[in-house]
């Protein structure tokens, strides 16, 4: 019980996160991926949009992605309030400022635009895609790291 309340080790975390792929297929018949939930929110918010990205999107078949996202938020709430002896804040204190809000807004924009343009994120491409030997997902993952490394090493001194 003591260990449970501390951060979990990488091997336990890695195994359990990896099991999400077969469990979600077996229990619900769904392919693990999270960024489609952004498109689902967009499509639900604009029911009469003529944009092909929303008009041709099956809102009903993808509704589960929002339920999944809500579940993630509930799980994080449970972990923070009932499963952590000393919960650490997710973001550094320096982000709790106007400049922090602007950084999060811009970074968030890049996440939304980038994952939708790439057709997936760390879950859909890096975990589900690579584990199904889908080579564009390997390339996508290399590019995720190329972008992250470039920003961290190139603009890090100025940004953080």
């Amino acid at each position, binding site marked *: 019980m003591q260990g449970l309340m501390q951060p*979990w080790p*990488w*091997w336990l*975390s890695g*195994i*359990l*996160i*990896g099991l999400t*792929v*077969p469990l979600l*297929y*077996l*229990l*619900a018949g769904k*392919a693990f991926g*999270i960024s*489609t939930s*952004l*498109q689902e929110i*967009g499509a639900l918010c604009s029911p009469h949009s003529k*944009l*092909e990205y929303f008009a041709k999107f*099956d809102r009903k*078949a993808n509704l589960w992605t929002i*339920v*999944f996202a809500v*579940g*993630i938020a509930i*799980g*994080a*709430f449970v972990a923070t309030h009932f499963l952590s002896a000393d919960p650490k804040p997710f*973001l*550094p204190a320096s982000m709790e400022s106007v400049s*922090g809000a602007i950084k*999060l807004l*811009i970074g*968030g924009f890049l*996440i*939304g635009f*980038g*994952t939708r*343009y790439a057709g*997936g*994120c760390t879950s859909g491409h*890096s*975990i589900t895609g690579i*584990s*199904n030997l*889908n080579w*564009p*997902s390997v*390339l996508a*993952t290399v*590019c*995720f790291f190329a*972008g*992250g*490394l470039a*920003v961290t*090493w190139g603009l890090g001194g100025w940004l953080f």
Partner: protein
Amino acid sequence: METTTETNDRQPRGQAKQATSPAAYLMVLLMGAYLGILFSKSEVAHWQRIHDMFLFREAHMYLIIVTAIVVAMLSMQIIKRFQIRSIEGKPIKYSPKPYQTGVVIGGMLFGAGWAITGACPGPIYAQIGGGQPMALFTLVGALLGMFSYAALKPKLPH
């Protein structure tokens, strides 16, 4: 180039179009909670962990990602080898995400956003649920980015 889950016409003939049953929605919710707990307890939703990953300061994130991929890959091999079906009897079939220019350009833009915010899409929801109100800015940004992509999609190379 969106993969529209299992309503694709890749089903064998005679398979009815699959609506999500209430039981499947419940499973999705529980699996989401499972993952939300994991995102928090493994600290993959923590900005500092992402930052230390990109700075090569620690192996934590790399070990988690590689372990998760290996476990998922072995699981998929077992599912394919024994043609295991979902509990509702549906065949389990991965629809490959195709290559297009966006995989490279979008991928790099997302990576940049991941480094700045310390979140990929799943952890955004985890940070909000875990009581980090500033993460709402990340979510609003992500939605603006998604709407911008929707509007610009016809003009972008794919």
